[in-house]
Structures are given as C-alpha cells and as structure tokens.
C-alpha cells in the first residue's frame, strides 16, 4: 500500500506523462478509499486549467 504522499506525487506526474497500468490501478484503489487524494487529483487538473488561462488575463489595473 502506498501512502498519500506517494499517491499525490503520482497524481502530479499524471499531468506530465501517461501513467502505466500498474500506476493507474494503484491510484484507482487508493482514491476510491481516500477522499483527500481524490480531491487532490481533481485539483491538479483544475490547476492545469487555471494555468492555461493565466496568460490571457489582463491585469485589472490595466483595464
């Protein structure tokens, strides 16, 4: 069993590369039992979305 620290590291790497089957299964099992890591995984995706929008935003002071 891997702990939350290791799971969150994998969830970060999932933003950068395709995980292999074993890694995917490990994540599935852990996140099905751990709400914290499940939410962390969703937040990693949201962080990516935020980042992709960031440069398009004008500074409020420059409007």
């Amino acid at each position, binding site marked *: 069993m891997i702990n*939350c620290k290791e799971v969150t590291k994998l969830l970060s790497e999932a933003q950068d590369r395709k995980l292999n089957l074993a890694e995917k299964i490990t994540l599935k099992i852990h996140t099905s039992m751990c709400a914290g890591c499940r*939410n*962390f995984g969703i937040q990693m995706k949201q962080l990516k*979305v935020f980042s992709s929008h960031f440069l398009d*935003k004008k500074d409020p002071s420059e409007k």
Partner: protein
Amino acid sequence: MTHHSSLAQNHDWTQDQAFMNDLRQQMVKFTKLQLHDEQLAEDAVQEAFIGALKNQQTFTGKAALKTWVFAILKHKIIDIIRKNKRLVTSSTLQNNDEDQIDVWDKSFDERGYWHLSERPNTWLQPEDSVASDQFWLVFETCLNALPANYSSVYMMREFIGLTTEEICQQTNTNKNSLNVLLYRARLKLRVCLQKNWFDQGA
C-alpha cells in the same frame, strides 16, 4: 513596422493596435515571472517582437501570430536563463530543502498520510474563479511566492507547454529531480490557492 507587399493579401494583424498591446502585455507578464527582472523582461520581449516581425511571415490569424511570437520569446528566455544561470542547479535545489520540509510537515503526517486539517476538499465553483479579477491576483501572488526554481519549471511546463523531456534538456536537470520540482510547485500552489482563495469564499 512598415507594410510589406508580401503581407498585402492577408490581413496584417501586426497593425491591430489593441491586439498587439494585449499580446505585448501578456509576453511581459510571462517573462517577468520567469526572469524576476523587469528590465531583462522588457528587453527580451522587445527582441522577440523584432525577431518575429522581421521574418516577413504571413499569419493566417491572431492565434498563429501569437504562437509564433511566443515560440521566439521562449527561446530568448531560455537563452537568458542559461546565460545567467538563473535556473535550477543541484545546489539551489538543496538550498530549498528547508522550505520543503515545511510543506511536508504541514501536509502529511510522519507516515505520509494527510493531516486532517490539510486534507484537500472540493474547490467550489472553479469556473467562477476564472472569471474573477481578484482570483487572478491571488493566483499571480501564489506563483510569485514559489521559489524561483519551482516557478521556472512550472511555467515552462504549464504556460509554454514544453514536455518534461524538453525541460530536462533545457535546464540540465534529470527526470526525477524535475518531477520532484513540478510536484512541489503544484503542492505549494495548491495550498496557497486553498488558503488565500477557496477557504476565503467558504
């Protein structure tokens, strides 16, 4: 910029003042975050523009022009980072360890499980956040609060869209170190947004 006959048939987006101003602002903002130096950033953007526009390429749309200019800017930034050795070296990595222990201690217990108070919850209405100027101020502040070596690689990955292989090459970092840097950057960004934005709205 002078009009060139080769551009005559396509709409010349470089003549669209509002568009060019926005583009310039985005570039400066991006570069400042990467280089942490106003003057260097202004110079890099200036050079990228000159490089992009003297190429006499015709652009099929604003998006094409933007992609092209950013591609040139990206190379400029990487050159500057290389010259100034502003990026990650193994020694700066070690210097940040103290800072790191901090995040670990706060997020996880000694067995590596979430501390109850730090366990991620659901971020409410992230779509509304994206539409809020206040949110973007918080986001930028959180980015600025990251150690420089974290934010550089994070931005290369998420803003410019380089692959981890490309970043490893550009920064002379091995894959494991890069994964750790990206992980820590995300962990810190997450906590910062949680505390300064999502917890505030609750």
